[in-house]
């Protein structure tokens, strides 16, 4: 793959994906879809790590392991986040992010 796809193209894809995630995070009204957006962002990061690892520093596998751990953490984070969402849902019967604004100013 190294010879056929330039690194920059790969990075363009991850960057796009990352900002798609950002876009989702900033626009989606549902908390769960926001979480989905975060996962997309993390996924982009993972790809970044893997691409760098593969293209530039093959063999040390640092990017590889970093991605591995990020995946694990993303899972943990998602679990806790969803627990909290459910808790919120029980309290206010909604998981609309725009209603999560009782505290402000």
């Amino acid at each position, binding site marked *: 793959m190294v010879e056929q796809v330039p690194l920059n193209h790969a990075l363009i894809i991850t960057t796009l994906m990352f900002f798609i995630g950002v876009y989702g*995070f*900033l626009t989606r009204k549902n908390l769960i879809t*926001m979480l989905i957006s975060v996962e997309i962002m993390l996924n982009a990061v993972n790809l970044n790590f893997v691409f760098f690892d593969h293209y530039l520093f093959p063999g040390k596998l640092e990017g590889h392991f970093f991605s591995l751990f990020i995946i694990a953490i993303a899972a943990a984070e998602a679990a806790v986040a969803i627990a909290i969402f459910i808790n919120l849902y029980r309290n206010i019967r909604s998981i609309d*992010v*725009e209603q*999560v*604004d009782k505290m*402000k*100013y």
Partner: protein
Amino acid sequence: MEFQYTIWIVALPLLAFLINGLGSGKLPGKISGWIATIAIGISTFLSYQTAFQYFSSPSRDKIIAFKTTWLRFNDTLHIDLGVLLDPISVMMLVVITTISLMVFLYSQGYMKNEKGYDRYFAFLSLFSFSMLGLVVATNLFQMYMFWELVGVSSYLLIGFYYDKSSAVAASKKAFIVTRFADLGFLIGILMVSFYTGTFDFEILTNPDNLSFSTTASFLGLSTITWALLLIFMGGAGKSAMFPLHIWLPDAMEGPTPVSALIHAATMVVAGVFLVARLFPLYHAFAPTALEVVAFVGAFTTLFAALIACTQYDIKRVLAFSTMSQIGYMMLALGVSGYGGEEGLGYTASLFHLFTHAFFKALLFLGAGAIIHAVHSNDIREMGGLRKYQPITHLLFLIACLAIAGIPPFSGFFSKDEILAATFATHPIYFGIAVAVAGLTAFYMFRLYFIVFWGKEKTYDHTPHEAPTIMLLPMIVLAVGSVLTGFIPFGHFISSDGQSLDLHINWSVAITSVAIAFAGIVVAWKFYKTESDSSDKVARSFGSVYTSALNKFYIDEIYILITKGIVFRLIAQPLAWFDRNIIDAFMNLLAAITNWISSQIKEFQSGQVQKYAFIFISGVLIIVLSFIYATQ
């Protein structure tokens, strides 16, 4: 140092002040009066001793009898406290102690039933102390210090009846007006000391020792002239020269003996003394300033005499008369030269100061006796008092004759010298002086006739003669008024310290005496019996009379300036400015902070997505700024 004891002349009244002041209200009976009187009595004795000792030696050098450094500003400038003896200070010592002693004695009778007897004598002693300290000052700053003390004691004494609003107002006015004048004095001192590097009279009054490196000038006058003019301003304030005179008539709110002592005989001549003290300096460096002195003196003497003719308050008449007489003295100083016959004006001025002290004090004490008897100041409520107060009448007449310049009373001699001095130099001033001599005779006898002759009024209680303790000082002063004219004054005091023979200038003398008699006759015509002729004449003068009656509206102008301009247009707006602009600005800063705080609260909207939006925007902006900067 044979004169060391002179310090006691000054110190004794201070002691009396301290005893009476600290013990105020606790001293038994009327002992405070005696403490003060005995103290001033000893001072008087010592003053005479000093005078005798000093004048009996032929030298007229300045003698430092006592000196101690009180405050050091730098290596050259320091305030010393000390006693300087020279002809004028010795003469002043005599005058002040004598008049003080008389007034102290008189007051024991006059103030007998007043509340605050202790306080009265304390203040009076304080005054004597300050006045004595002033005249023996060894340097300008010591003089200024005592000058201020004199002002304060005057303030305290004018406001003696402090629960009377008019007295309070008068004391305030007196202090503030003289304070304003003192401002000039102080600035003058600062300027003089800046150029000469000293406050010391020994150096300052010896112009040969002085050399100025300055050629600085301001509005066409050299700075030293300005300095001396400012110093004269201080003198003019204390001596009630136009236009700083307005406090003096009001100052009559104080007890009458106070008026006699302070506002007739002693404090008000401090201005004359000041100019006389610095006379060599004036003469050598600022002839222009002397011209101003002469002009102010001449103007005031006429101005005050005119007003005196129209007043009905016995003490105010005397007050304006005092102004007029001091104007005389200033005039004489102003026209004087230095040394020999040239210096006649100088001698004449101080001579008149000397004689005036006696007869004016006598006049005031007489007025006091009258007021004491009829309980009123208004001469329209008096009349025919000669029957009830024969001795007072006689004494008052002597004083009137003396001030009118009728020979052989003392006033004649001194006034004659003044007239002679002006005659020799400025004919116009001479004319004014002669006219004032006539006016003086007129208004004094107007007073005299209305009070002692005229139609008898109905009195609440029958007026009675004053008690002995009041009469005795008056008699002493009357003797002085008669005799002091014969003192060969020029032998003791002259501008250059050389003995000066005073001759009577007969042509001048005859003119003045004739004018004086004319004045007396007019007064006699008008006022000996109640008639409306005086009113007719007054009416014929029209607005001039009305203006004079209203003291030429100077008070009103002052009120306009102080209340209207300083108070309303400067102080009040300033206070407003402070609260509403400067302070408000500080508050505005706080308000702006709060305003911004409430404006930006929307950032904290509670919306997670907005938070994230700002977050990522922040990151990108930071990056962008760096990328932009590195390009």
